[in-house]
């Protein structure tokens, strides 16, 4: 008995040794800073002077007085609302085509994944700036058709959509997840339905969609969270300004400017907390809605 508890005590010591790097990180780089930024969000703080408590003033300004903030919110929502569904539709469509048992599947899959692999980089954002610039590739192509295109990235009506296109173009990774999900659907179901005379569309609606719902849900949540956090493309394409006229001022970009260009660290912290809440609410909403459209295979057990 004594030997056993000694062994347990030893294991406990060993366990905490194994955990120690992570624990230090958790306390000093994650939990501590999370609480600190909650505190900072109620202060005015410019790095030079110690933080000064101002109550809910940051939040009040954010919700009621800051036109740029409201604009950043709507830019971000447009970006998320346009890019996520389009990206998922593309990903699912391509996954279904690739699932037809073609030879060379792995080659197509690898090639179509490339934009996803590379698309988040500065290099591709730089490329996008050229492609959608006034004398860029898109306008050169339009010129062949006799159309004189605008500078897409410096026109506030279009600039955000060039970023949406950039994001949709990276449909490769959800496509891979969909493909893995499609593989799980038993072939027999489709065959039986086909014999009963179900059209391709009917089979898609009644077999593929319901059985794939958990995967769709997973991709939806993942992509939504990711889209809210996008930063690099907007920063590079707009040259760090979020312009023209704040039309690409993503939430994260505005947060960055407030913190590291204007040194309003308290305000930026408040923004970070609101972002956390927005992400939490949209994730929760997705989970709530899932009750009505996502059914897992083992649910009835």
């Amino acid at each position, binding site marked *: 008995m004594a030997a056993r508890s000694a062994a347990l005590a030893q*294991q*406990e010591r*060993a*366990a905490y040794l*194994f*955990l120690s*790097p*992570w*624990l230090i*990180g*958790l306390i000093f*780089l*994650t939990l*501590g*800073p*999370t609480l600190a*930024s909650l505190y900072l969000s109620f202060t005015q703080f410019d790095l030079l002077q110690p933080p000064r408590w101002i109550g809910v003033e940051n939040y009040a300004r954010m919700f009621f007085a800051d036109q740029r903030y409201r604009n950043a919110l709507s830019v971000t929502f447009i970006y998320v609302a346009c890019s996520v569904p389009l990206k998922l539709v593309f990903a699912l469509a*391509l996954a*279904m*085509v*690739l*699932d*037809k*048992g*073609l030879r060379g599947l792995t080659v197509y899959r*690898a*090639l179509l994944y*490339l934009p996803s*692999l*590379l698309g988040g*980089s*500065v290099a591709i954002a*730089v*490329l996008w*700036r050229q492609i959608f*610039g006034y004398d*860029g*590739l898109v306008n*050169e192509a339009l010129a062949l058709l006799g159309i004189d295109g605008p500078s897409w990235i410096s026109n506030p009506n279009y600039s955000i959509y060039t970023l949406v296109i950039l994001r949709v*173009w990276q449909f*490769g*990774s959800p496509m*891979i*997840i969909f493909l893995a999900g499609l593989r799980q659907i038993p072939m027999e179901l*489709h*065959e039986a339905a*086909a014999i009963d005379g179900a059209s391709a569309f009917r*089979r898609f609606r009644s077999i593929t969609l319901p059985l794939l719902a958990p995967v769709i849900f997973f*991709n939806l949540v993942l992509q939504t969270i990711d889209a*809210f956090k996008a*930063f690099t493309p907007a*920063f590079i394409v707009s040259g760090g300004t979020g312009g023209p006229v704040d039309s690409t001022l993503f939430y994260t970009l505005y947060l*960055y400017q407030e*913190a590291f260009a204007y040194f309003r*660290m308290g305000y*930026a912290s408040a923004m*970070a*907390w609101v972002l*956390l809440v927005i992400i*939490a609410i949209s994730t929760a909403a997705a989970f709530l809605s899932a009750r009505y459209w996502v059914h897992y295979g083992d649910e009835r057990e």
Partner: protein
Amino acid sequence: MIRATPEGSLRARLARAALHAGLAAFTLAMLYPLLWMIASSFKPERIIFTDFSLWPRDGSLRAYVEGWTGLRVSFTRFFANSAFVAVLAVIGNVTACSLAAFAFARLQFRLKKLWFALMLGTLMLPYHVTLIPQYVLFLKLGWVDSFLPLIVPKFLAVDAFFIFLMVQFFRGIPRELDEAAMMDGCGPWGVYRRIMLPLSRPVLATAAIFSFIWTWDDFFGPLIYLNDINLYTAPLALRSFVDSTGRTEWGPLFAMSTLSLVPVFFVFLCFQKLIIRGIAMSGLKG
């Protein structure tokens, strides 16, 4: 949808050929911007805008030579910096995350459930929430304008997702192996070193690969923490390159952009299977 179309019938074969043609065309269209950038980096500056071809006639390496030294400091330095940060990040992530994962998967200790729940909780946390206090901390430590803020967090397993991934994998390794090793006198450290690590190569490799890709591509961290141009990583250098050349010289810019994509592309070529499986199984973002 039907995978088992009868082989051989002419209609089926034609349909398949059409599908291949369509897919190939679509794939090419998707890759066109990328290929065009690579081709353009070899083209003479004046025709970049007007030439759609993917094969540079009278191509040259001029843009590469110009681009390499296009900033005050050469790209040798920037790529070396990127490689340094990325390699250390990989080592840090793999070491620290596997240590923590081993404790969660195999050892008994008090508060285990609480710590595990906290670990899962941090997965959901957007990094913006910790951003500013972390910055203040690193500023007070005198680490701003050094690589430390980019590297040290990895050695403290801040990318907790990898812990989660490894715990899942470790749990799949039969416990009998641990017990046998314990009988032979191995302590927890011995089990970790001699049983877990050698048997977990796939998950360790997956963590290493994604750490590398993310760190290499990371723009936000270097943007905040590195001011001295001698410390710039490749993405940061590209960004100042854009600002300094404006819209006058795309050739050198494309050349350096292309080069900055090469390491990630190369990693993908070598570890394609692991990367695709990593995404398919756990939704690691690529």
